[in-house]
């Protein structure tokens, strides 16, 4: 199943902050930041189990992350990915001429992917190192 016309918001979360300080290349960080948090009603429409990897895509890129239910719900139509390299595959780098990228408010689409794999921090980023 898939969901379209969602709004993606990224931001800080305390467990992701702790994982940052504990080690950004460790698995605990992937579990804290490589996730997409859904409103309960939206998640029901997706028709998958909690923890299933989903592919989130925006105009600027796509990434596979774990799906979880948001504790900061209800927020129908909004998905949340903690600030980090997974979110940064999806954000709008354009700053409308003032310098700060647009990290919040992108239009996003979510699909359940068969055998989806959530990459670790370095595995996700090392493709850029030529």
């Amino acid at each position, binding site marked *: 199943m898939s969901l379209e016309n969602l709004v993606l918001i990224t931001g800080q979360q305390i467990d992701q902050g702790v994982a940052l300080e*504990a080690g950004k290349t460790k698995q605990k960080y992937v579990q804290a930041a490589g996730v997409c948090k859904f409103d309960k009603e939206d998640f029901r429409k997706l028709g998958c189990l909690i923890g299933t990897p989903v592919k989130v895509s925006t105009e600027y890129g796509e990434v596979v992350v774990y799906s979880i239910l948001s504790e900061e719900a209800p927020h129908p139509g909004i998905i949340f990915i903690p600030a980090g390299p997974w979110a940064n595959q999806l954000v709008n780098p354009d700053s409308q001429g003032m310098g700060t990228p647009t990290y919040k408010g992108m239009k996003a689409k979510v699909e359940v992917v068969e055998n989806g794999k959530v990459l670790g921090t370095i595995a996700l980023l090392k493709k850029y190192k030529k």
Partner: protein
Amino acid sequence: MINKHVKTHTDVVCPFCGSLCDDLEVDVVNDEVVEVRNACKIGTQIYFSSNSDNSDRYTSPMIRKDGELHPATWEEALEKAATLLANAKRPLLYGWSSTEAEAIQLGVELAEITGGILDNCSSICHGPSIMAMQDAGIPKSTLGDYKNRADLVIFWGCNPVHAHPRHLGRYSEFIRGYFRKDGLNDRFMVVIDPRTTHTAQLADLHIKVNPSEDYELFSALRTVLKGIELEEEYVSGIPREQIEQLVEVMKSCNYGVIYYGLGLTHSLSHHRNVENAICLTRELNDHTKFLIQPMRGHYNVAGSNIVFSWNTGYPLAIDFSRGYPRYNPGEYSVVPALLRDEIDVTIVVASDPVLNFPAAAVENMLKHPLISVEPHETPTSALADVVLPVKICGVEAEGTAYRMDNVPIRLRKVKDGPNGLLTDREIMKRLINAIKQKKNL
């Protein structure tokens, strides 16, 4: 039994977020942290991560050879970094928000002698706030003043329960103040956020604004404040009656504060959102006392703006390519400069842009040599060409940091840290000397 080897450090200042909590107690045995009291979850983790059992900690400088990072001597690593910077046509010097003011000052000199672009992390967080302040000024005070006086606390586009975990307890909501003897019972708390965040779950009033529509809501509040009736039934998803109710709440308080976060600066209108918020605050002062405070992220990001300003006249996005500082956010800001692919060498001090920048900017940064000044393995240091490991500021080194309200606080040193590592300050000094020699300055 009392362990005589425990050394307890009190009034330790936490080097994590802009709240800069200064009441920590840290127990140290044989240069290892064994207990941290009073800190939040994240602050506690910083102290424990400095211990020798953390495999992510660098113990010697590293240089990339044949695609892999290999240990090197300080002479080799500093020589390599200095050569890269001295030969660069358009170097970028980025980071600075998680180090002490004295190292930042030397960073400004390094930018001047290399003719580079100098920018700090506010470029991707509260840079829009600074631009709005330059446009509109800002009515603000210190956290102690808010604590003692505020009876209306508004959190707009920020989630301090997650990002500044002790802020509510130390400065803004739960704490008892001189004129607010009953703490949270003497305060009214409003949260304006599209999600029912954990902060919103504590609020007396939660206003669920549509994402990226804060500008319209500020304008609507200003309209109602001027006594003009709204024509629209809903603005930014909020019914007219609720907007009128919020204006009444704002007008009737004795002392109000708007704390705002990246919800305003990271959405489409960026600095225009903040400017509208400042104008609203200014206009509210016709009725009562009202102030506004950005929730700064890293512990010394305010300090990086301040140190840049008193050295160059500008707080961020500074270009030294003509030998004198020029300021133009949007052009010399780090992400647009990387997107234009004009940077040929990057040095990152106390930051992790590979983790934090949009993918397109990371891709361009990693095409060219990268130098990382960093205590732990991070995506930036793991993909860098030269790694210069340092002592952790606020844990193993002293220095000055500026809290989110621009109050300078002296960071404490609680332990010595691994042997053979330098501080950020020493690395800057050595790089400056080496580059001056190479350029005959």
